[in-house]
């Protein structure tokens, strides 16, 4: 039998959400040629879309009464209100965060981090956004713990 679990151990909880949205990568201060050069087919004036997967990681002590870092229902409700309702089936270019910023997935990732930093029940440490199964973007607020190179083996 193993040792009992640590009652206030710090754990990292990750939850993935899915949303679909359209966007167009275009910078007003660029010429037509510069936009074409920078963004290629993503500059199509009529836009295009993706099925985005949003992975948020939250850290905190495991609450001894619930065994949880935070209430998953509270996190899902927060995500529904502040992520899915805002962005799902929308044109990102038309939304306030992207009035003055091109809606690349880099900028989208940083915006999602800004949103989840206001979740009151656990600390956001990382946001990862998959734009397609081939492209993903990460924004780290607090790096995951590192393991020292020295190895130890107990009997």
């Amino acid at each position: 039998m193993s040792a009992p679990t640590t009652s206030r151990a710090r754990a990292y909880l990750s939850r993935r959400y899915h949303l679909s949205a359209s966007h167009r990568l275009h910078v007003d201060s660029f010429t037509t040629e510069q936009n074409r050069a920078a963004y290629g087919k993503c500059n199509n004036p009529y836009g295009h879309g993706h099925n985005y997967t949003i992975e948020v990681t939250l850290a905190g002590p495991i609450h001894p009464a619930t065994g949880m870092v935070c209430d998953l229902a509270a996190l899902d409700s927060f995500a529904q209100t502040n992520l899915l309702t805002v962005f799902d089936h929308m044109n990102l270019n038309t939304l306030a965060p992207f009035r003055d910023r091109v809606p690349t997935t880099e900028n989208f990732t940083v915006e999602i981090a800004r949103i989840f930093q206001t979740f009151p029940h656990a600390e956001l440490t990382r946001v990862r956004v998959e734009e397609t199964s081939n492209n993903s973007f990460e924004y780290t607020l607090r790096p995951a713990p590192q393991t020292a190179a020295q190895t130890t083996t107990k009997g």
Partner: protein
Amino acid sequence: MVLLTRKAEFSAAHYYWNDAWTPEENARVFGKCANRNGHGHNYTLEVTVAGEVDPVTGFVVDLKQLKDILEQEVVSVYDHRNLNLEVPEFAAHIPTTENIAVAIWNRLDGKIPNAKLHRVRVYELADLFADYYGEQA
């Protein structure tokens, strides 16, 4: 140093219940997870170990050996079990994804020859997982 990750899968039943609370409080906090008849998941375990590459074998650890350790220490104990009723560490701790990650860490810590446990990741669903890196200073 190189990190190496090995996956394993187990299927188990659990429920969430805090004996110190009334049934109403349990239902309010844990929702449908508080059904005392239990429900189940196909869990995926990812164990990441850190170590130096052995100059002769080219391995950080022998994967067969790591697979056998995961089987013996975790899968044989958790697979097709009711975690609340049949796995000793969950007599006093609710088998949430977070606590399962900590419990698996405690089962494996110090048992991997020539490598150090770096991370235990437990997927309860493809869209929900917990990571534990041991006690941090």
